[in-house]
């Protein structure tokens, strides 16, 4: 992103036309980033609560007073209940190696606070992916131009990965076929040659039936399978029951369509699959990815540029996670709490001692993104809970803080970014002075370390030092990349072969225990786990529950189950995908984005709307036993019969009934990696 500065103020932003991946384009979230920086509701000073919790009444205090209060309160809590009574809560509201995912980890690990298991996004898919093909970057997204057949699976590219689209579009112009698998009709599905709509949470049946057809019809690349996979014979026997007819009954997709999909995917080489994070959001969401990750090896798709699987290119970056997390500072045995369980954790629902006495929220707005909204509100309203929130804005969560700390935006700080979507490093240089008394997250944790008396110089490292020490600059992928290059160019492609010739697994070399694609996963023996990357570097107290070693279909827990029961109380399956203009809850308070999104919508199929007397633009209440919210109905085929779709990201304070779709989301985790099950959610809809 290029930032235009005039007289010390950001006056505009634009994509960098020289960047080979983004090519001068931004997105609906960031295209007017200056409006975020200068938003009239920016938090600019530390503040102390001056009214009841949740009302958002605060008075300005100094940083010295804020920090002294935190130190005092935390020391009292530690003396009484021990440091695990303190819970950090964070994710990726701010991104970057310096200020993003891990910025508070060394501090909280040293403090001995309860460890946050942050399985917000892609942790379930990542566990499954790593079990199968290892932490490989997978196929180069730019190599998609060479694909002959592309499957976008649970991925609304035009809304959530728009920079990938031109590469897909080029492939299409070259004759590639595009299949989009998504229960929801979106802008991306409108571009597809074939749009398949499985019932929510049944995708694994589809993937396993594809494997069944590919094996039964002899469409396997035997040479590739023999040399670069393990467990083929077991998988072959295992999928006998996963016939296209079985998958048709589960997914609602015609068996012949499934057969043809498998045939085309196998024969049109190189074939590519891009999976989105939505794929993990049901009871069997991890096993879906296990099955899908077997497909490219079965048909030899990895042999050529443009073939394979694209999940998270993150794994290509030689990030020194040990330096970022500092798990070595953790007190052995420290408990771990999954962040989807925050509502229960704050209300005694986890039956753990000591109870949480202090909460420290940064880079996240749990009241919008976490499930169990009502219970979470009750927890946050606890008078005895000492809550500190570091934020750019008065979010729904911030309203419940005892202390509010002002945080900088991306143009007010330095950072170095790896990518979730391409193979370039980007240097983010501070463009303007920080607004008011806002500080970067890195500075926040330097100040907290001082308050807590940590004299290890590690805790006072400058942003520049953090930035330089957090990558392995000697790694082969960094050869030729220097800070000087990043300063002048702003970005640098990792030292990997050019996309036109890059086929990372043409000759195997998968970073799994066996070095091969593990169709039968050796890592299943240890039971279910979350990658330490998503839990402050800790590998203790893993779930460990049994995991099938072969990809196995697990039907949805709620969705689609109710409709088999006449008179079911919650007969509709709700999905709450990302909105086009919001990034989870971020940008939900910006007028441009809010106007584009309009009020909270609920897409409902005419078949389901008709019997409920619902017409477009009617106000409807969506409810289940966990909660309710009110939305504007949009009757149409965006939602398939039996499914309703509520795009997420709206804030509670601006919503009717002060509740959002997360109020209905289950807290039950999926089968792998602590993934949420938000697309496995039974609800009912009625006119208000």
């Amino acid at each position, binding site marked *: 992103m290029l930032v235009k500065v005039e007289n010390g103020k950001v006056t505009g932003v634009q994509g960098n036309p020289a960047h080979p991946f983004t090519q001068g384009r931004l997105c609906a979230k960031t295209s007017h980033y200056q409006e975020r920086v200068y938003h009239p509701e920016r938090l600019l000073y530390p503040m102390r609560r001056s009214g009841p919790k949740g009302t958002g009444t605060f008075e300005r205090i100094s940083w010295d007073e804020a920090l002294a209060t935190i130190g005092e309160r935390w020391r009292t809590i530690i003396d009484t209940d021990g440091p695990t009574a303190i819970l950090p809560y964070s994710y990726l509201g701010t991104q970057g190696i310096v200020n993003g995912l891990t910025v508070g980890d060394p501090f909280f690990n040293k403090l001995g606070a309860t460890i946050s298991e942050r399985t917000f996004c892609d942790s379930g898919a990542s566990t499954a992916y790593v079990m199968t093909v290892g932490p490989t970057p997978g196929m180069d997204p730019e190599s998609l131009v060479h694909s002959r057949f592309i499957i976008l699976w649970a991925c609304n590219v035009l809304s959530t990965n*728009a920079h990938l689209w031109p590469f897909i579009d080029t492939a299409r112009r070259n004759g590639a076929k595009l299949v989009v698998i998504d229960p929801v009709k979106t802008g991306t599905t409108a571009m597809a040659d074939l749009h398949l709509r499985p019932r929510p949470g049944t995708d694994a049946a589809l993937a396993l039936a594809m494997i069944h057809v590919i094996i039964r019809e002899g469409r396997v690349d035997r040479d590739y399978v023999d040399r670069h996979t393990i467990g083929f014979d077991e998988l072959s026997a295992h999928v006998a029951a996963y016939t296209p007819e079985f998958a048709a009954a589960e997914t609602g997709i015609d068996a012949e369509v499934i057969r043809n999909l498998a045939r085309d995917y196998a024969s049109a080489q190189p074939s590519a699959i891009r999976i989105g994070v939505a794929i993990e959001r049901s009871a069997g969401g991890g096993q879906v990815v296990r099955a899908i990750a077997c497909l490219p090896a079965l048909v030899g798709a990895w042999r050529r540029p443009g073939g394979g699987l694209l999940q998270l290119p993150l794994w290509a970056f030689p990030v020194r996670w040990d330096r970022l997390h500092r798990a070595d500072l953790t007190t052995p045995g420290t408990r771990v709490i999954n962040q989807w369980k925050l509502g229960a954790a704050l209300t005694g629902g986890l039956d753990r001692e000591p109870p949480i006495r202090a909460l420290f929220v940064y880079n996240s707005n749990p009241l919008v993104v976490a499930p169990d909204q009502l219970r979470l509100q009750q927890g946050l309203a606890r008078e005895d809970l000492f809550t500190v929130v570091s934020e750019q804005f008065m979010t729904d969560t911030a309203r419940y803080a005892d202390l509010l700390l002002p945080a900088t935006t991306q143009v007010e700080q330095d950072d170095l970014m790896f990518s979730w979507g391409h193979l370039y490093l980007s240097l983010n240089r501070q463009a303007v002075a920080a607004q008011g008394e806002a500080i970067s997250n890195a500075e926040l944790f330097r100040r907290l370390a001082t308050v807590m008396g940590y004299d290890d110089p590690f805790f006072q490292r400058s942003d520049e030092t953090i930035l330089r020490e957090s990558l392995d600059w000697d790694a082969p992928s960094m050869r030729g990349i220097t800070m000087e290059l990043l300063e002048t160019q702003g970005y640098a492609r990792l030292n990997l072969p050019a996309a036109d010739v890059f086929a990372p697994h043409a000759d195997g070399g998968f970073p799994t225990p066996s070095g091969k694609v593990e169709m039968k996963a050796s890592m299943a023996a240890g039971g279910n786990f979350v990658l330490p990357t998503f839990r402050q570097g800790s590998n203790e107290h893993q779930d460990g529950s049994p995991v099938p070693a072969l990809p196995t279909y697990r039907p949805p827990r709620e969705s689609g189950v109710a409709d088999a029961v006449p008179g079911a109380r919650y007969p509709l399956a709700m999905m709450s995908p990302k909105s086009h203009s919001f990034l989870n809850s971020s940008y939900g308070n910006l007028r441009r984005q809010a106007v584009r999104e309009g009020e909270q919508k609920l897409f409902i199929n005419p078949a389901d709307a008709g019997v409920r007397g619902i017409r477009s633009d009617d106000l409807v209440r969506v409810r289940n036993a966990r909660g309710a919210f009110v939305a504007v109905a949009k009757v149409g085929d965006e939602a398939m019969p039996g499914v309703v779709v509520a795009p997420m990201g709206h804030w509670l304070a601006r919503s009717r009934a002060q509740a959002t779709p997360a109020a209905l989301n289950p807290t039950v985790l999926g089968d792998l990696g602590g993934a949420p099950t938000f697309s496995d959610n039974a609800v009912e809809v009625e006119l208000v």
Partner: protein
Amino acid sequence: MPHVVTDHCAACRYTECVAICPVDCFHAADDRLYIDPDVCIDCAACVPVCPVKAIVDAFDLEAGADELIALNRQRSRELPVIAEKTAPLPTAEARRQALKS
């Protein structure tokens, strides 16, 4: 709200925008271009490349946004997609100078 092509495009039709648009949402008439508001993804990449600043986010229009969106939508339905850059109209330079003054 989507981006729209305004009357500034008339007699210009520079088409820098169509080359950078990732979703091919531009449609060409003889005298100017239109954006299909149902296809535009608001990436804003076309805004800075237009020599006559003919493309705006409808959100930024003080008045007439709905009408302009409706016009862009309707004309896009009737006209073919333009995805490749073409030469500006012969009147483009004169029009650009006129718009500058």
